[in-house]
């Protein structure tokens, strides 16, 4: 209970500081509409030649990308890695070593508050878009999809944040982590299904992708919601996703312990 209050306070502080940056999120969400425009134009041209691509219609593909965009603002890691890196580099992390606070949970609370703000802001352009796109959108109606999509999205957020956290902790070893972060973004863009729905990959590649954590970052919850995977695959995916969260948490703990051994705190 005391812990919940402690991290609840961190969440509230995070909420306040993220509201300061609301215009940044607003600009970013505004430009995300351009991203959707690219998707609409490019995939519209692809579908002009054939009513179905990879067994899905244009409406289903567009819905997939819109859900993906909403998920990015609700569960995606934005610049958490960079913030953690800065705290380590500037020595701000020292204060957490002296207090009864778990740095991972503290950062997770801040991450959650940031996503509440960014998620709330992206709803505005999406709701504006809805009247124009509602005839094209194609969401399945099975109730189990929504029931499974919620835990899948929550676990996806954990995966996203924990990967960002681990990249941030690399600062214990490297002065500059941005190269690693952007390298990982390129991998995530492909294997997370942000460039194209992963089911359009050749079958062998798609099967391999399902065993990487990146598959569960974005594609998996979006695929459940938009009808790209069936009930059996969704349940199996959830089990693998839980496994990946466990592996990443262990990794994060290991990085933290080993990183602290290299850390030199000067001042307070």
């Amino acid at each position, binding site marked *: 209970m005391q812990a919940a209050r402690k991290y609840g306070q961190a969440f509230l502080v995070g909420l306040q500081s993220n509201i300061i940056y609301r215009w*940044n999120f607003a600009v970013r969400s505004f*430009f995300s509409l351009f991203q959707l425009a690219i998707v609409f134009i490019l995939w519209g041209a692809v579908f002009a030649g054939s009513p179905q691509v990879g067994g899905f219609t244009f409406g289903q593909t567009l819905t997939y990308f819109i859900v993906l965009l909403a998920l990015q603002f609700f569960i995606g890691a934005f610049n958490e890695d960079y913030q953690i890196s800065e705290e380590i580099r500037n020595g701000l992390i020292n204060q957490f070593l002296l207090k009864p606070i778990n740095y991972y949970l503290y950062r997770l609370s801040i991450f959650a508050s940031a996503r509440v703000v960014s998620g709330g802001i992206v709803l505005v352009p999406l709701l504006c878009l809805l009247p124009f796109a509602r005839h094209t959108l194609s969401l399945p109606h099975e109730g189990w999809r929504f029931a499974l999509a919620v835990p899948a999205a929550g676990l996806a957020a954990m995966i996203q944040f924990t990967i960002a956290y681990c990249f941030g902790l690399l600062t214990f070893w490297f002065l500059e982590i941005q190269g690693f972060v952007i390298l990982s973004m390129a991998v995530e863009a492909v294997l997370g299904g942000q460039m194209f729905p992963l089911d*359009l990959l050749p079958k062998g590649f798609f099967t391999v992708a399902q065993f990487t954590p990146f598959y569960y970052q974005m594609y998996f919850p979006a695929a459940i919601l938009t009808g790209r995977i069936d009930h059996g695959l969704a349940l199996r995916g959830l089990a693998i996703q839980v496994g990946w969260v466990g592996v990443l948490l262990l990794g994060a703990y290991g990085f933290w312990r080993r990183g602290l051994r290299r850390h030199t705190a000067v001042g307070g």
Partner: protein
Amino acid sequence: MNYFQIWLAGARYSLVRTMMFRGDFFIWSLVELFWMSVNLLLIAVIYAHTSSVAGWNAYEMTLLVGTGMLVQRLLMGFFWSNLFEMGRNIRSGAFDFFLAQPGHPLFMASTRKLDPDGLLNSVLALAVVIYAAHHLGLHPTAGSILMYGGLILAGLAIHYSILVLTMSLTFWLSSAQGIEGSYFTLADFGRLPREALRGIARVAFVWVVPMVVVSNGPARTLLHGFQPKWTLWLLAAAALWVFAAITTFNAGLRRYASASS
């Protein structure tokens, strides 16, 4: 000291710095290579399911995307990290450093560093263009190649101006974090063939924000020879955008209040 000499001194410093941080150079070269591969993979996946997109076949599309990447890699090599840091420097007050230098602050802030990894990858982007041209059986004349180079430079000026405009928002916003992503979103329009855009999208991204023209103009010159309409528009758009970028930057600079801004 003229501007070219100042730029040359910065370039020399950047090369020496790159030699000192070879690991960084390797990682960043890999980063850019990965992003180029991601774009090529997208083409491969799309054309595995269709033979034509807006009338462009796979190799024509590769040439188009390669051209867009070439402009973007040149931007990365010459300007990206300078402009990326500009946003943060304005926020922190470190931008003062550029105001005390012997040149226009925009020039000093944009050209302080070179990124050899971006320049290396622009060679790879050019290789993608040559590869696609070879598969299309193109034999461009020397004039077409020169025109292609000129249009690439005009496209670079447009990309640079849009990035300056985006980063100049920092003079008005409380933080630049994430703003630079907006540039990448706009730059992605360069992957699209002009024929795919209709109605308001065509007006917006061909004529108003000419990201589509930046890649389509040079690519069409290689594919079909000199295109007067495209050439004129690209050159005029470059002049207009450079003017808009400098004007906005100067307006922002007047708001700059050092560390407290």
